[in-house]
């Protein structure tokens, strides 16, 4: 009889423990936070893969709300770097433009500090042209010595049809950026693969 009582108590306590662990487990579940975190990560995948343009650690980032933007600028990143080796911080500004229907583009501006003001030395067309599948134009910076590589291709009939890609290099000399002769590289759709 004592055994029966013991077993009864054990069964009831087991049920109690099961309830305890079940409710404790429910309390510990992170309530959808994991889901939204996952969604945010997946969102990164949807965006065009971030291309490494060689510019890191911006001194300033300004982000503008699409709903309030009237000029299409949604982000400005400012980099302060010594481009010409005169110990003065020069300035590279990249500005993101979007019109809402297609992926936008980065526009680059390069300015040399001369102690009192900034001297704009940006060559024409220093901007990206990004697509949903293939990019038409990309810019990459390297330092010591300062150099800019630009690879682009043109649309002949439609965006996704591969065309010949070209490359130019810009190097800093005598206070300005000197462009190399454009050279043919390869027929591609996405120019990112050529860097």
């Amino acid at each position: 009889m004592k055994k029966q009582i013991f077993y009864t108590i054990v069964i009831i306590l087991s049920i109690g423990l099961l309830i305890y662990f079940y409710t404790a487990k429910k309390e510990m579940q992170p309530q959808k936070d994991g889901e939204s975190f996952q969604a945010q990560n997946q969102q990164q995948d949807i965006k065009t893969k971030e291309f490494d343009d060689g510019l890191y650690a911006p001194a300033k980032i300004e982000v503008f709300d699409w709903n309030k933007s009237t000029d299409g600028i949604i982000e400005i990143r400012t980099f302060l770097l010594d481009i010409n080796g005169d110990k003065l911080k020069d300035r590279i500004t990249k500005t993101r433009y979007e019109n809402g229907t297609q992926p936008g583009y980065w526009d680059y501006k390069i300015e040399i500090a001369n102690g009192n003001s900034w001297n704009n030395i940006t060559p024409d067309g220093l901007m990206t042209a990004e697509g949903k599948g293939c990019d038409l134009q990309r810019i990459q910076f390297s330092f010591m010595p300062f150099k800019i590589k630009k690879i682009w291709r043109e649309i002949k009939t439609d965006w996704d049809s591969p065309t010949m890609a070209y490359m130019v290099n810009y190097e800093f000399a005598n206070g300005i950026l000197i462009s190399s002769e454009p050279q043919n590289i390869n027929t591609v759709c996405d120019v990112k693969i050529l860097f």
Partner: protein
Amino acid sequence: MNIDVILHHLENSGFRVLGSDGSFIWLEDPTCFARSLLDFFDVAWVAITVFAGILLFGWGVAKIRGIQGDVAKNIRNLFLIFAILSSSRLIVNVIWGDDAFTCKKIQVPVAEINKIIDSAKLKLKTRDENYLYEDIDIYDSATGTGMPNVLGDMDSSAPETPFEGNGIVTGGEGAGGLYNNQFSTNSSLEAHILGHEGYREQVYLDTKYYPTIGIGGLVTDYSKFAAYDFYANGVKLNDSQEREFYNKVMAFAADAKSKKDPMVKNGSTNTIRTGILSDGTRLSDIRTTKESIERQMKQYISTSESILARYYKGWESFPQSAKNALLDIAYGYGVGGIHNIQGLDACVNSRNWVGAADIATRIYGTKPSGAQVRRWFMEAAGS
């Protein structure tokens, strides 16, 4: 609605109201497991008591008939079982260190409830109270199956397909000008874009699996999504609901992209069959409004114009028809991509609109929208 009436309705609907003040109502979580368990115990306790009574009665009858047995022991065991059952909650609470049978509280803003009620009232106003046999929409709110199209009077212009509302739809020709009248267009450009792009009031995935809405509005981040007002079953989503919807849409798009969900060609439309989010909601169940789409259309044009004006010197002096043509090209090729169209920038910078018309012919091919772009350039050449 008066808060007491709201509380009364909630209690009648089976909610356990824990309290309220002027701003919030606190309800017990209706999905609480502990509550289910306690409700079960309440019923089980009565059943056990009745069962024990029957046993006692049986033992009594057996004793009268002279059967041998220790009734006292049996009663003692029965008492022990009842005692342990009664103390089980106490035991669990001692282990837990708190009240394990407490359910979570849900805080509901009274203002939100009133909004929902007002919205429902507004919807009911459209019903004829004297017409007792009007159709009643019945749908499964969990799956969205059969849910009414709350903005049905402005259904999307992209071609309806057997897979309505479920998936990827390309923009482009074929949407037709049937829907132009639904927008108060104020320029030939808006009319043209609407005519060849059409619009969709629900989120869909384009051919590259990008979430898109309205007139080809690309959703790359939340701010572009939040630019639209969304409604589910006639009720406007609040900020947190819209954010949640956005997260689910992005997850859905990522999933479709990773699986490379196949597209089905249907006329001029590419689509996939599965347009169902992780919680069972169909993409077509949540829709934006004509006003939101119209607002974004205007923003697209003003933004594009502002960007192109920075690049093309003398933009202000361009003939309006040339501006329209370039804005339409920027619509399809982007404000960045337009400059990589072979020969176009050279033509624009030299005001060679005839050359630009030839380029339009080349890039648009046989697309009907190309004819209008070419006409605009030729019109600019003649001005």
